[in-house]
């Protein structure tokens, strides 16, 4: 094994062994407490009223009849209850940057006037029960001045389009300038001049809702100046800071609690308007409030993956060497800028001459924001479809084309280890690529045709600051305090396993306390697939400290305890740290019906050392299936005549069921690069990145027509074949 591929693994006692979750019993008995399960004495129920219009100015809002309804305790609107929501609209979409939230000219409040999309909140009511709250909403009269709207992001960039913000529809960057994000390297003129052939194509991807099973809820409770918020968040520390900043109170006066959470996928990392609305109602009513969102409110009122339009122009030599790449992408952000709107993927290719421009654009659709691998699956679909097509046109095998052109380590670009080539080769072998891939696309005889596609990725696995605390008592029980929420990936168990490993004790001797800012130290939270690497490494350091203390003082006696904590901020010495992967897909297409079936799916990942093979496998399988859903199924359609969303919800968006789930074969290449806890890297997001590109390439290979738009619904297959 070369230096670049890391070192083989040494066996460990706990880490690396398939381990059922430490809280599995709670998860299968109904005892796990989610936000909407929290009941406080005297608690009120709250519901929000939402705009039925895609774009409208509120002339007048009359809440008198709602306030007069028996059982109603508080009603708030943009006139008497709006709170500036920092994370709701950020300059440049820099979501973890306080300053960018502060400086944006395009501020979002919990209630806005004008409203900019169907489903935006305009009022909220707290009442003695849910039914009274819902009835009160029906008694609120809103006089709207309906404004022109724009649904299509390309139309939104036209000079004649209605302006959703005074500055126009191109979202402002981190300097509050209406400029696209541009990256330039080398010279396009030279690059295209050196090319033997130049290819161009246009790709589109759809809005994909996070669609986590737990609808948004928030329980807010004031005790004097101290606010406790029970809320589904994968980042309790960030959420606490967001809430405190937006309400103008000190961080220490906010406690955020999330013990269990029904799925994350990127829309539960920070505070949401629901938290601020619940807190405002609770303060006004003088009682705890539980705000509940319906499924449809969650679908339209939260956010999902930004939809994109991507154009590529690529110059290549006859031998397949890429000489120039030009890309222009438009990302639909909805009415507010919650995230960057970036489009990833170009960085995977070696090319000296690159120009990439991305336009994050406002429309009167529901907001876009974080979704598992925020900028990745849609971008990878575009560029890896483009490259697959070029390989076919050059009569090259796409695997050979990838191995030739993918980014490799160099003197300027050193990795802690690099295994992308190994992922691709191993995947091709396990998948039996040479047999399944059709050198002549669409060549199967008969109406049911098969084809194969692949894609590959590298995803950040960087190190960073996080904290952990550990305690031992006289009964030799260890208690680990970590500020993570187990959103489903198994973080609580993983943190316990790391502590047990480092302490040299069985996992059953370790209790894990998490999901409560009053009890746990800072953690980056479950976003960016960082928990295992960052908080996990803090656990290692805290355990080392505790071991040193035990060696010095012995096991505590009586009621004594020993405690240790760590806040490491490691770095990888200027080297890039990535996880790697390659997915290989065989698709079967019924060309008479336009139906697609996935007949083989091989996922090979190098994510360093695998902490818990049981949960890691299912992170990849589930993410790959989500990727297939994005490739074949999910969309949020709008009626362009009236700006109404047409299919919000699982059924309308055609979400995958048990029947649609393909068999996903997962292989991990395990190495230890010497960084992170025992060499662990990223998993959670990496598995979703490759599905859309690999599935689309497989379908294109099967039918002999390039698929340029996802989801690949039946009409698109039939359209491509027409």
């Amino acid at each position: 094994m070369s230096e670049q591929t890391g070192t083989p693994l040494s066996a460990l006692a706990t880490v690396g062994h398939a381990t059922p979750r430490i809280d599995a019993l709670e998860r299968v008995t109904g005892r796990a407490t989610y936000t909407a399960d929290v009941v406080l004495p005297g608690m009120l129920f709250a519901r929000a009223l939402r705009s039925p219009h895609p774009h409208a100015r509120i002339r007048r809002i009359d809440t008198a009849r709602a306030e007069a309804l028996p059982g109603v305790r508080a009603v708030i609107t943009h006139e008497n209850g709006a709170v500036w929501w920092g994370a709701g609209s950020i300059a440049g979409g820099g979501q973890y940057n306080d300053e960018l939230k502060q400086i944006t000219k395009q501020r979002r409040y919990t209630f806005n006037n004008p409203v900019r999309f169907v489903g935006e909140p305009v009022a909220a009511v707290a009442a003695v029960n849910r039914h009274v709250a819902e009835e009160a909403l029906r008694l609120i009269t809103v006089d709207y001045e309906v404004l022109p709207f724009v649904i299509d992001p390309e139309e939104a960039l036209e000079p004649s389009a209605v302006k959703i913000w005074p500055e126009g529809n191109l979202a402002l960057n981190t300097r509050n300038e209406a400029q696209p994000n541009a990256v330039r390297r080398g010279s396009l003129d030279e690059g295209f001049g050196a090319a033997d052939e130049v290819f161009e194509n246009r790709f589109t991807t759809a809005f994909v809702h996070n669609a986590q099973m737990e609808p948004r809820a928030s329980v807010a409770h004031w005790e004097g100046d101290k606010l406790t918020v029970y809320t589904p968040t994968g980042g309790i520390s960030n959420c606490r800071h967001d809430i405190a900043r937006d309400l103008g109170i000190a961080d220490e006066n906010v406690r955020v609690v999330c013990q269990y959470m029904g799925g994350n996928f990127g829309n539960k990392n920070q505070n949401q308007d629901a938290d601020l609305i619940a807190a405002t109602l609770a303060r006004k009513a003088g009682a705890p409030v539980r705000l509940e969102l319906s499924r449809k409110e969650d679908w339209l009122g939260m956010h999902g993956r930004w939809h994109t339009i991507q154009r590529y122009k690529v110059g290549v030599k006859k031998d397949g060497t890429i000489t120039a790449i030009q890309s222009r992408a438009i990302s639909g952000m909805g009415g507010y800028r919650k995230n960057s709107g970036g489009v990833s993927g170009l960085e995977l290719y070696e090319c000296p001459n690159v120009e990439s421009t991305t336009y994050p654009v406002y429309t009167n659709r529901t907001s876009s924001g974080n979704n598992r691998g925020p900028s990745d699956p849609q971008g990878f679909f575009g560029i890896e479809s483009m490259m697959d097509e070029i390989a076919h046109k050059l009569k090259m095998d796409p695997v050979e084309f990838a191995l030739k052109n993918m980014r490799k380590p160099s003197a300027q670009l050193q990795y802690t280890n690099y295994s992308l080539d190994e992922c691709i080769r191993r995947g091709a072998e396990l998948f039996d690529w040479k047999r399944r891939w059709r050198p002549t696309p669409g060549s199967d005889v008969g109406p049911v045709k098969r084809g194969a596609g692949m894609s590959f990725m590298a995803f950040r696995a960087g190190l960073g600051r996080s904290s952990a605390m550990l305690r031992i008592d006289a009964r030799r029980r260890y208690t680990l305090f970590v500020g993570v929420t187990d959103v489903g990936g198994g973080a609580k168990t993983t943190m316990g396993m790391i502590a047990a490993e480092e302490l040299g004790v069985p996992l059953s001797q370790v209790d894990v306390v998490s999901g409560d800012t009053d009890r746990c130290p800072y953690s980056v939270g479950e976003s960016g697939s960082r928990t295992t690497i960052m908080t996990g490494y803090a656990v290692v350091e805290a355990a080392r400290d505790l071991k040193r203390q035990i060696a010095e003082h012995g096991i505590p006696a009586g009621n004594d305890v020993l405690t240790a904590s760590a806040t490491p901020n490691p770095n990888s010495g200027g080297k890039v740290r990535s996880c790697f992967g390659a997915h290989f897909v065989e698709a079967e297409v019924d060309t008479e019906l336009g139906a697609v079936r996935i007949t083989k799916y091989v996922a090979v990942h190098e994510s360093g050392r695998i902490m818990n093979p049981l949960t890691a496998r299912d992170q990849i399988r589930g993410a790959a299936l989500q990727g297939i859903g994005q490739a074949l199924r999910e969309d949020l359609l709008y009626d362009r005549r009236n700006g109404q969303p047409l299919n919000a919800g699982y059924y309308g968006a055609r979400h995958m069921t048990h029947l649609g789930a393909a068999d996903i074969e997962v292989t991990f290449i395990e190495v230890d690069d010497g960084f992170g806890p025992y060499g662990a890297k990223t998993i959670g997001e990496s598995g979703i990145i490759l599905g859309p590109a690999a599935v689309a390439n497989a379908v294109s290979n099967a039918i002999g027509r390039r698929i340029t738009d996802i989801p690949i619904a039946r009409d698109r297959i039939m359209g491509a074949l027409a």
Partner: protein
Amino acid sequence: MAGSHKDEVSRREFLEGTGAAVVAVTAASTLGAQAPVPGALETAPSAVEDVPRTRISVIVNGTKHVLEVEDRWTLVELLRDHLRLTGTKIGCDRGECGACTVLLDGKAVYSCSNLAVWADGREIVTVEGLARGGRLDPLQQAFIDHNAPQCAFCTSGQLMSARALLNRNPSPTAAQIRSAMVGNLCRCANYPAIVEAVLAAAGQPNGGAR
């Protein structure tokens, strides 16, 4: 989006309407009168105290309850808000996702899509009633061993659907499991592990029929 559209009738409103109609149909049949008019959908009760209530008797997880329920309560509201059995989850409240699945007289039903009054005289089993005498249902153990819950918000519903399936077919194939559980969504897309867990439970002695 309660209340924001006139053309949008929530699941609960719809059920309230149809529920009221069912009650009325029963009464009307007795009197030999005409069925009620569709206008019933529009008549929402307007004050906290004077909403229609009905006394019902239900057996939940083996315990008999005699309760006065509001006619507008769904079964899942009765279970979660009033019997405090919060293991049953509300994922969509409109019959799409299956997180609220319970057994009603042994049959898997969406408790968001049934009114509480309809359960009168019937037996309900929720996830809290699966374990018996301190012993987990073999399905629960198999779910633990095979990592069937990820975020676990859908897990209660998956378990109840699987229990209903194994009660009528103790040895299902993977394809039969997928068909029977098609109404139970998992956004973590942990479908493979769930099917593996059900197969494992079915393969055990006592794993199947109860």
